């Protein structure tokens, strides 16, 4: 197995008496796109937040890019922050900045970048995320829900991070836009060697881009494997998920 970019061992997360993860283990290899699936409220978003270090109260070990999370020194923190991009489930854009300014925020970390280049790069990312040029001047509250998602992706991509965390990126997108989104993610992983941690319910996305799927159930990663391997898993939830009518409709080999 190639080098693990994300390594989670024995993770326990709880809110009060409510245990969300119980001794959860997970590995994500360099350059792979891992799809994380699970029912609503099984702790996918919480896992994502914990891995990026936003959820400090926990037991267990987490390493991202060989650096323990949460980072212990300022240098480690800078290395983590510069090399991961996060797109939150509801966009989490800065509401008092325009879309272009939102995308420029991570670019401001780069020393010596001129304001013009920064704006150009922001425009490029906005366009790559599938937004029209004019959207750069809009405030988040002036955008539709799907456009806010894309703006969130543009911000996550701003620094071409090595690891990209996406929380349900295609939810709320039209099917054409979602397919273009899948192609974009796939293309970027191919050409930039991105590693992607992708939480999704979108079976088409799972088929189109994910190298591996991890199923979150019973407070841990129940099983990981390719989409084909998922079909053979003998667990009621996994069977219902991957053999349901929607799953059959999304299968590329259908018909």
């Amino acid at each position: 197995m190639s080098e693990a970019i994300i390594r989670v061992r024995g993770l326990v997360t709880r809110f009060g008496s409510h245990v969300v993860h119980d001794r959860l283990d997970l590995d994500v290899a360099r350059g792979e796109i891992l799809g994380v699936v699970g029912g609503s409220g099984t702790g996918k978003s919480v896992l994502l937040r914990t891995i990026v270090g936003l959820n400090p109260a926990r037991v267990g070990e987490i390493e991202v890019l060989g650096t323990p999370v949460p980072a212990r020194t300022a240098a480690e923190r800078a290395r983590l922050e510069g090399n991961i991009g996060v797109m939150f489930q509801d966009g989490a854009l800065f509401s008092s900045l325009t879309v272009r300014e939102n995308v420029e925020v991570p670019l401001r970390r780069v020393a010596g970048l001129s304001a013009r280049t920064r704006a150009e790069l922001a425009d490029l990312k906005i366009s790559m995320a599938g937004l029209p040029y004019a959207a750069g001047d809009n405030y988040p509250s002036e955008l539709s829900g799907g456009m806010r998602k894309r703006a969130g992706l543009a911000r996550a991509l701003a620094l071409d991070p090595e690891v990209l965390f996406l929380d349900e990126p295609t939810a709320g997108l039209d099917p054409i836009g979602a397919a273009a989104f899948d192609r974009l993610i796939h293309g970027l992983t191919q050409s930039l060697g991105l590693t992607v941690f992708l939480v999704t319910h979108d079976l088409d996305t799972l088929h189109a881009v994910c190298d591996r799927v991890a199923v979150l159930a019973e407070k841990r990663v129940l099983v990981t494997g390719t989409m084909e391997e998922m079909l053979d898993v003998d667990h009621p939830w996994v069977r219902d998920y991957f053999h349901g009518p929607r799953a059959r409709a999304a299968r590329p080999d259908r018909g």
Partner: protein
Amino acid sequence: MSEAAPRIETLHEAGRTLVRLAGRVTVADLPEIERAFARLGGPVAVDLAGVERMDTAGAHVLVRLRARLEAEGQALEIRGAPAAVESVIATVAAAEPAPERAAPARRGLVDRVADVGARMTGAGRFGAELLAMFGLILARLVRTIWRPRDFRMTALVHHCEAVGWQAVPIVALMAFLIGVVLAFQGATQLRQFGAEVFVVDLIAISILRELGVLLTSIIVAGRTASAFTAAIGSMKMREEIDAMRTLGLDPAVMLFVPRVLALLLMLPILAVVANAAGLVGGGVMAWVVLDISPPMFATRLVEGTGVANYVIGLVKAPFFALIIGVVGCHAGMRVGGNAESLGRQTSAAVVTAIFAVIVADAVFSVLFAEIGI
């Protein structure tokens, strides 16, 4: 990381410039690469054979260079690119937006004059909106009295606690200190005429008639108008108000009426608390500085000060309460989609409420003077 920092080599060969890029070409290295590229002109070839990692920012600079050279009637040849680098460049070239940046409009004299006009009508509209909000709240208040079924008692009690009970310590302390200050200042002045005993009248009239209710209102405006704006504004920001409307819930009944009613009930009580605390403060100081014993203070207070002063003070309280409540709720509804407007409206609510309360107090003073009480 593993990749080496970028190496840029510029050679001249057969009438054109050859640039050899190697190592890392990423956003962190952009300033250096841009500097090297800025000097290029004429036909250029870029050799990317040694590039280990190129990100979209690096590709963007190449694509931009190509666009610039082509605009100058030259050409850029990109060669030797590894497959991964080539695909990044292709992705970026396909995604480059066509800037349609409009030239910033020049502002002429007409625009400035128009600005002044716009601001004036804006101020007028603000006043009209406030009035409309006032009317709306009054109408809903009356309807609530008519049909108490819709009324939300729990909300009222909750707001009474927040607006009234929790403000008691600060209001009482403030009034006590004002009484102390008045007694002390009054004593030093009146002693010159041997008229120390009139300090009681001074304290009683100024606190009961003016300062008790006015300062209470100012404190409540600072505490409560801002709290109303922040609460209603953040609900507005997260579309909760729209959700209420679609669910057939009237925001005026659900949000404004309990808040304004709580203020209407609590502000007079707070004013009474402030009056009492102010008199106690004044009495203590009069005792300490002027040897006016508490029984003497009380006698003088009852004989020298008409009940009218007390009534005049308290009559104003409900009006001030309405002003504060309406301004706070209205500012909350003006909050737009972003966090900054929430902050702006919150501070605007406090300023407007305090200002309006003082204006109203001035109007009352003139009014009472005219009718001779």
